[in-house]
């Protein structure tokens, strides 16, 4: 049984590695985008009293570089048009006569895509950022445990993100068009994940909303673990929260998927 999901994962993963030029273009874009963001924050920090800020400038810079390097791990708008087409054209008929759990099958597929594109993109950006002159450089994590906790929380964050994005695909069973759900998930989800501004820089009332939602666990949390902004103990309990969210989201997603499938209409006869 697991072999089929593994096989799909491998096929998608290899397929994703084919797109080297796209990855190169992406790397360049993200590199410049990261530079611009850092310049903006430098300007802000130059005007303010640095000591009173909730995050130090090197921490912000590191946060931005990680965000750019692992963009495909954390952006909700990374979409698989193939899945949307399956649903809206009715080709889902074939997907449904396979002896596989559709939720797990799609999950494996989406995960493979994100992993393969991140694999191509992350190391050039991280290496570049490492060698940049101060204050643009990526600072290393404070110690080895922070690095390990970062890797764990980043991967868990990826799993949480994919389970959130599954809801976009499930919603298409009802709406027949991904545009609306994509837009909503993008704008709301990415802001709440700390993609636009890091969560510690948000006003208090907004932070109170953000902590009860799953989005910040996908990006904000692992990046701050890396920079040491979130300490050892807090990181461990955060990873527990990630696990709880992951289980809840997957269970909810499977339930929603099952409900969607009982009322599925195969489009186009």
């Amino acid at each position: 049984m697991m072999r089929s999901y593994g096989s799909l994962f491998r096929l998608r993963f290899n397929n994703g590695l084919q797109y080297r030029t796209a990855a190169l273009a992406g790397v360049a874009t993200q590199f410049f985008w990261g530079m611009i963001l850092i310049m903006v924050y430098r300007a802000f920090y130059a005007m303010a009293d640095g000591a009173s800020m909730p995050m130090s400038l090197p921490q912000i810079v590191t946060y931005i570089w990680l965000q750019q390097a692992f963009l495909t791990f954390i952006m909700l708008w990374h979409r698989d048009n193939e899945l949307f087409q399956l649903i809206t054209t009715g080709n889902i008929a074939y997907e449904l006569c396979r002896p596989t759990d559709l939720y797990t099958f799609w999950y494996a597929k989406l995960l493979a895509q994100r992993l393969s594109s991140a694999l191509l993109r992350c190391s050039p950006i991280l290496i570049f950022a490492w060698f940049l002159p101060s204050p643009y450089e990526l600072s290393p994590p404070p110690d080895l445990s922070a690095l390990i906790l970062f890797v764990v929380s980043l991967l868990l964050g990826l799993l949480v993100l994919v389970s959130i994005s599954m809801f976009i695909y499930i919603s298409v069973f009802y709406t027949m068009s991904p545009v609306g759900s994509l837009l909503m998930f993008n704008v709301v989800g990415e802001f709440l994940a700390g993609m636009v501004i890091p969560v510690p820089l948000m006003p208090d009332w907004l932070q109170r909303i953000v902590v009860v939602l799953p989005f910040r666990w996908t990006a904000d949390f692992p990046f701050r673990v890396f920079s040491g902004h979130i300490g050892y103990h807090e990181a461990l309990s955060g990873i527990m929260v990630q696990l709880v969210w992951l289980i809840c989201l997957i269970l909810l997603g499977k339930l929603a998927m099952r409900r969607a499938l009982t009322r599925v209409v195969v489009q186009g006869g």
Partner: protein
Amino acid sequence: MIELNGISKSFKVARRSSGMKNAIKALFHREYTHVQALQDISFSIEPGEIVGYIGPNGAGKSTTIKIMSGILVPDSGSCRILGYTPWQDRVNYVKQIGVVFGQRTQLWWDVPVIDSFDLLRDIYDVSPQAYRDNLDLLTETLDLTGIIQTPVRQLSLGQRMRCEIAASLLHSPDILFLDEPTIGLDAVSKIAVRDFIRTINRERGVTVILTTHDMHDIEALAKRIIMIGRGKLLVDGKLDELRDRFGRRKTMTVDYEQHPGRMFAPPELPGVEVANWSKDRAVIHVDTVQSRISDVINVISSQVELLDVTVESQPIEEIILDLYKEYEL
């Protein structure tokens, strides 16, 4: 093996009249109509049968196939196939069946056919030995040798369809559902597909349910047909019986030489109709219930010198057309 009992299915369809006013009205109040796709469909199919499932467009053929393959859930009725209720025990059930939708594709567009096959092998958990055997048999009988390494997007429709059929049989299913497998194929590919279906039915005992609009498919393959129209089951019977019951019209072509002074005259027998005639040939339709062929020949041979007589049964295409007319489809 396959038992359908009182299966009904309806779809909710949103509709509005044309025009701006109605479009705005539909924003606030949507009108739906229920389309009854299937109404109380019951039949049973024995192992090893090839059944032609026919009906005009929109009759509910594909809907029935989708219910039988566990994709759609019917509103009411029961369905037992191989001991499973398809939509309840979907994952275990679909391991036993193969499905081909002629208008859709299950192969991965960007990769060579063999990659899709390998993925299907893992999805269905086919043992390496069984996979190799099946693949050999399929490549040989469907003539896939040259095309299996080619990306799907570069295949012609006929080549692709042969691969689609092969893909549905890699896991040695007991039942094969074919929804318009010959749609858009040229004569050579059609014959290849038909031969193949016959082969796997004979050699492996695969039960085949086939929907098609090409009556040659039915004639070449199916011993039994089930006909539905507007969601209702209309005819379920052996093709031969159907032909006896409805295909009683025969067409005679008579070549003759006229005797001097005696002309060919249309025989005045009931149920006999001369479509056209000239001084050396006549085409005559005979309703074999009302008049016997031999009587017609007797009458003509008394008028003219017969050179050649050919008698053709009514093609199945026309029988079906008559049936559609009879049921006002």
